[in-house]
Structures are given as structure tokens and as C-alpha cells.
């Protein structure tokens, strides 16, 4: 179709195509530039970087920033907390969400309509952060690792996404399984689960990214430093001086031989916090489109 059209394409359309390529290429560059800048800074000798002038390539290559960061117990601890909450939180949440969505897909079941309204309304209005915090206090969740996992088990948006996908699955399979004596759990895990991999991967990704990137609960709901996730450690290092002081051995940094500075370490921290997500998402990319598309169809 395009081949034979080329010759006839008017000049203004050809120019538009070229402009289009140029614009998209520059968009990619604009997105990548800050990343490359931070990457270069993180691999540059800290003292040298403080002289300024580093753009997209390290002037004096060094990995000592990363070595210093990994010597820091708060970073290791933060990494452990983040991994725990990401893995456990995501797994439990996806399971529970699938089960609830499985029940919610039966519109004719008594009470399901009301339950759906009950859930959807929470997307429109909420009590705000302070009463929420008081609820955490009421259930003694603050200052425990569960404060990351339990309050994020369900999200109305994910529930709707999965429910809509389930509704698109041919119900005759469920019916025939039931005639064979299967109960609901078996139907869910043997029939719906395998068929719903696209949408389940998408909510896995959503949950995983949310857990990995959440700095807020760690900053406001937790005071025990042993429970601080990586992003909160990062946020406090970036914004709060005192936290940085506590987390770094100032003496090691101040010593004459050290080439690491607090700034160069921060850059390394930023890169460390990005790498896992940035290396995983391209592989799940093909599922996004399918999964997200389902969510946009009205449920």
C-alpha cells in the first residue's frame, strides 16, 4: 500500500514525515539525556565531578561511588526491605485481586452489584491521609513491615481491570467444568489463570513498580530505620542532610585519599534504584498493550 503511494506523496506530506522522524528522535534523546548525565556523574571520580563540566561521558572513570554505596548498611537494608515487599506484596496482591475479581465478574450473583459500587466509590472519594494514618495506628500497622503490604493489597483500578478481562473469557468453559464437579477455586486456578496471563502480568507489573518506587509510606508511616525501603533511603539522602550523615561514614568521605563525595554517591544511588526496573520492563512490554487495552473497555 505504501510502496506504490510513494511517488504520489505530496511534498508537504513528505516533509511532515521527515519532521515526524526528527521530532520523535529528539524526544528519545530528551528522555535519555538526563539519564546519561546522571550515569556519567555516577561513574566519575567524585572530587573531579565537583569541579563541574561533566555532561555525557565520565572524565575520570571510577566505580568507587558504587563501592561506597554498597558498603552502606542502610542501602543494603533498604534493598532487602524493598525486595521483600515487592515480591511478597506483589504475589499476595495479585492472588487476592484475581480471586476478588473472579467473584465480581458474576454480575447476577446477589450482592455483587452493591459490592462493585462499594469498591468503585473509593476511586472517587477518600478520607485523606490523616484519617488513613489514624487507621494504620488503630490496627498497629505503622512501624511494621506489613504497613507496606496490607494497605496495598487491593486497588480498585486493578480489580476492574482483571474483572473486565475475566468477563471477556468464554463462560461455557466454566460451565462445563462445573458440570464435571469442579468448584470455584479450581475453575479460577485451572481455567481463568492460564487464560488471563496478559492481564495478570500487567497488574504484576503495576504492583511491582508501585512497591519498588514507593518512598512515601517509608517516610511517613515508619520510623524504624530497619524498615526503610530503598526509595525512602534515597529520598532522605537526596533531601535531608541528617539522614545522609547518619548513613554515610563522614570520616571515610572526608579523608584526603577518598575520591567519593556525597553528590557522586547520590548519583550512584539513583542509578542503582533504577536499574532493576529499567532492565525488566522491556521484556514485559508486549503485555502492556493487551492488558491496558482491556481496562479501557467499559466494565
Amino acid at each position, binding site marked *: 500500500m505504501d510502496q506504490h503511494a510513494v511517488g504520489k506523496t505530496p511534498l508537504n506530506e513528505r516533509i511532515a514525515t521527515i519532521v515526524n522522524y526528527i521530532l520523535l528522535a529528539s524526544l528519545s534523546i530528551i528522555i535519555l539525556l538526563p539519564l546519561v548525565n546522571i550515569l556519567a556523574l555516577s561513574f566519575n571520580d567524585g572530587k573531579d565531578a*565537583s569541579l563541574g563540566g561533566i555532561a555525557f561521558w565520565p572524565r575520570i572513570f571510577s566505580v568507587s561511588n558504587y563501592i561506597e554505596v554498597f558498603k552502606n548498611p542502610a542501602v543494603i537494608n533498604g534493598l532487602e526491605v524493598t525486595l521483600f515487599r515487592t515480591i511478597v506484596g506483589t504475589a*499476595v496482591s495479585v492472588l487476592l485481586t484475581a480471586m476478588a475479581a473472579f467473584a465480581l465478574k458474576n454480575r447476577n450473583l446477589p450482592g455483587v452489584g452493591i459490592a462493585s459500587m462499594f469498591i468503585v466509590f473509593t476511586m472517587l472519594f477518600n478520607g485523606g491521609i490523616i484519617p488513613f494514618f489514624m487507621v494504620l495506628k488503630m490496627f498497629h500497622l505503622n512501624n511494621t513491615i506489613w504497613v507496606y503490604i496490607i494497605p496495598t493489597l487491593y486497588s480498585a483500578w486493578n480489580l476492574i481491570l482483571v474483572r473486565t478481562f475475566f468477563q471477556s473469557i468464554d463462560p461455557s468453559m466454566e460451565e462445563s467444568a462445573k458440570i464435571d464437579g469442579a468448584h470455584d477455586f*479450581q475453575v479460577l486456578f485451572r481455567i481463568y489463570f492460564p487464560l488471563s496471563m496478559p492481564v495478570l502480568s500487567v497488574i504484576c507489573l503495576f504492583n511491582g513498580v508501585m512497591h519498588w518506587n514507593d518512598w512515601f509510606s517509608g517516610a511517613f508511616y515508619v*520510623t524504624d530505620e530497619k524498615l526503610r525501603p530503598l526509595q525512602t533511603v534515597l529520598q532522605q539522602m537526596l533531601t535531608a542532610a541528617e*539522614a*545522609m*550523615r547518619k548513613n554515610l561514614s*563522614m570520616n571515610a568521605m*572526608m579523608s584526603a585519599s577518598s575520591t567519593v563525595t556525597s553528590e557522586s554517591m547520590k548519583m550512584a544511588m539513583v542509578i542503582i534504584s533504577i536499574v532493576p526496573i529499567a532492565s525488566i520492563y522491556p521484556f514485559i512490554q508486549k503485555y502492556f498493550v493487551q492488558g491496558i487495552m482491556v481496562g479501557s473497555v467499559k466494565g
Partner: protein
Amino acid sequence: MKKITHRLSFTLALMLIMVTILSACSSDTNDAASTVAADGRKSGENGFIANRDVTGRIFLEGDGAQLPDDQVNNPVAQKIKEKTGMTMNWQSSGAADGLQELTVALATGDLPDVIEAYLDHGGRPEMPVLLKAAREGMFTDLRPYLENTKVLKNYLDPDFLPRDTRENIMFRPDFDGKVYFIHMNIPAKNTTDADRIHYRGGMWIRADIAKALNVDPTSIKTQDDLFNLAMKIKAGNFKDNNGKPITVIGPRKWGGQVVSSLFKNYDFGNGTQFDVQDGKVKHVAETDYALKSIDFVQKLLKAGLLDKEAFNMDGVRAEEAYNNGSYAISPYMNIAPDSLTMFEKTKYLPMDQMYNYKGEDAIYEKAKSGSQVWAIPATTKNPEQIVQFADYLASKEGKALWNYGIEGEDYKINDKGQYIFTDKVLSILNNSPQDERNTIPYFWGSLLGKTDVNNNKDFGELIRGANSQPDRYKLYFELMNYGNPKYKYWDGYTAASYLSEVPDIEASLKPVLDSYKDVLVQAFFAKDMTEATKILDDYRAQLKAAGVEQYEQYLQQKYDKDPSSVVFYIDAFF
């Protein structure tokens, strides 16, 4: 398979409920402590208190880094346990904001046996929170237990405490004789000026630059002097230790915040925002001084003399920069003993004798220092044991342990009665100072023990270690006494602390007062003075709407009745 999936799903379905219930029933600690020591001593016999593990929390913004790695099994803590039966474990989260942490801990009831918070004086922002908690019965009345102590008993003597501590923090009239907070770091009776450490909080200048330009830092008196000096420094093209060109003026040594010592000629209402002009109480924004200081900072910024990030730089970066000599002038730093290493590397000199707005070149200091408070939550059992423990740490025997370690092992007493560190400790101090805390848990002990302080009398030196390392501390004393400044001492109820007496005005006025620093920064970075004036005018309107006039009237009444009842100008750096 069928059974397994069934069971698995069922378990998961109930998990939420289970965990919630379980965590809701978290156990209560504080079992009654046994009151007989291993060697048979009973409570009160020869210093034994009880076999008890005390947990505490500090809300001191990152100072937890100075706690020993193991707070129970270090030699000093073991020695103290032998004697008293008690161990003390402080938790610290190193959070960015001690006040936020304190508030959250109080609101969630997340309180261990004893807590410690910053409270330099009664005008600190922690005060209203602590007061509210005390009024709502969150803390134990310590008064009955003070009677049975040896050192802390001094607090009951009206002459022992500074006025601010006595009237505003500990023995408040509205507490009906109850005492909820113990204010720490109170000097002992009969201390003189020779027993006083001057921290020289204020502006400092790099010594080599002052010398190269042949400038006597004590001769800098006016803002013009400062500006001209800054221009000269800029023209001098100085470099830092890494060879990078310097910026003339940097942030506070601990990072970005507005510091009034930068425009000391205009520091009306230093530390309280209020002061008296022509007999009338005014807020600094209602005087010319506010605009003058903005004008000065804008001038510095336009001339490229002040680091643009001075007002928001984080503390670590700032400290690094001062270690590297990257700034010629610091608007605010001091000589806390731990900064000696920095001064050895890059020497700075105090330049704190500029005129204040009153035209005095004296340095204002608190009459008697107090620094932090501790309190015992109402939920703690046997609070008297903790008071006794604190009393032991504050005794000379206790102080010697956390200041100098174990006798013979860590220090020896020479024939002049001076405490001298052994070679073992000196080698730690010189080679890995960050490990000192594991041998001598100074900060750990100071939390409950540093009060009734007279180091000269007790240990024969003003600063611990000064007699052990005389060469090193020569620099310290040189800096401390540099330029022989005059001192003025303040004491009493600050203008800021009266705010909690008028809750209706406080509610509307406090947020506006709190935002003054932000307003100043906006004005500093405004395009020109016209815009800056507008920002200030807006702020004045806000003050007025929030009831600043009523508050000024309130202060005016107090002031007219007795001028000494309100302290307007204090040493706080804003």
C-alpha cells in the same frame, strides 16, 4: 491437588484478617524488673537500682550515629550494669525531622520507657508539642522522684536553673507543681566564666584568605565592610583544596537555611522575629530591617558573591565544601569539639564581631546552657528506677565512665587530678575517631547524664581530652578566644514562647510566622527590589490578617509591666 488449591486459597483469604488481629494484639513489654542484684544487693544498696533493660528513643535528628554500635555489651555499659543492674538502649531513626518524628511517636503511642527531644530553650518548635502531650497526661510526673536523688535534686533549688528552664519548661505554673521534663546540660552551681565553653556560633572566614588579604576579621563591623571584603576575596581568585575556584560566601555549615548572621547589622528580633523599636513591640517584617537585609542579600547574589544554593543545600554537601575550603566565608558555623578535625584541615577564624542592629559588637549567648529534655511516658512502669539511673549517670562516678571510660584501661588520673587518656584511647582518637563511641560512649551517657556540668572541677579540663592532647586543643582554645569578644547573656521567657499562652492567635499566627524564612528566600531571589518589596508587603498583610497586632499588644503589656519578662533578642540563628 484439589485439596491443596482449596486450602491455599482459604488461607490466603483469611490472611488479611489474621495479620491484622495478630498485630493488634502486640504484647506489652516492661515486665516488673527483679530487684535483687546478682551479688545479693537489694534496691538502693550501694548503687544497685534494679535488673532492668531500659529502652529509650531520641528525637535528635540523626545524632543516633554517635551511639555505640552495641549499647549493652560495651565495657562502660557493662560496668554501669554491674553497679546499677540497668542497661540502656536508645533507638534512633536518623529521620530528617526530629519534630515530625516526635509528633508521630506521640500520636501513635509509639513510646518506649524514656524519650529525649531537642529543646534548647522554651521557644523551640518542639515546646508546643511537648506541652500538649504533657497536658493530655502522656508523661509521668517526675517531681516525687526528684526528692530522692543526689544530683537531680539540685533542680528543686530555684537558683540552680536558668529562668527559662525553671518557669517555662520544668516548673510551669500551669503544671500545678508537677514536673514532666528534665532539661539537660545545666551548668553546676558556682561555675564561673572560666568554666564556660564559647562555641562562637556566627560568621567565620578562611584563615589563609584573611591573611593573604591582610584583613583582621574582628575589624569587619558593618554590612559594607563585609561586602567590600567579599569583593576583594572574589578579585583574589582563591582556590579550594581540590583546585576549584571558590565561591565567596556559602551556606550555614550544616546546610541551607536563612541565617541572620549574614546581615547582622539588620538582625532585629534575632531568633524570635519580635523586638522593641521606640518602645513599641514589632515584628521584623514591620521594620526597615527586613527590606535592608533582603537588599543586602540581593546585592550579594547579583555580584555572584553568595552561592545560589546556600539556602537549600543539604548538610553533608555543605560540610564537605567547608572541609575542602570551597567557601571563603561561612555565614554560620561554630567550634563544637567534633569540628576540630575540620579546623585542622582547613583553618577558619571567627568573624562574629559585626554590629548587631542595636550597634553592639557583643556576642549573645544563653546565660546557662540547656540543650535537650527527657521525659518518661505515662505508660512506663517503675519510673523511679529510670530517674535513679539518670541520677547515677549524672554523678561524678557516672560522668567519669561515659566521659573517659574505665580507669586504668582508658584513662589515668595524674597528680594534678586531671583525667588523661591512655595511649589506647589516643590511638583511637587519632586514627579512627568514629570508633571512639564504642570504647567511650560519650553521647550515649550524655543523654541522661550530662547535667550539673562542671568539667573543670570534676576532671580538671574544660573540654574532655584537652589535657591529653594539649597540642591539638591549643587550636581549639585559640579559636574559642580569638579576638577577645565581649559577651552578653540572655535568660528568660522568649517572645516566641508567649505564643502558646494565646492559643486563638497562635492557631492563625504560627503558620504565618513559620513561613517568614520562605518569604525571605523568595524575596532574595525576586527579580528586583520592587518585586521583593511586593513580596514583603504581601507578607505584612498576611501577618496582620493572622492577628500579629493582637500578639504584639499582648507582648507589649507584658513588656510594659516588666521589661525583663520578655526576651526578644537571643542567640538562636534565626
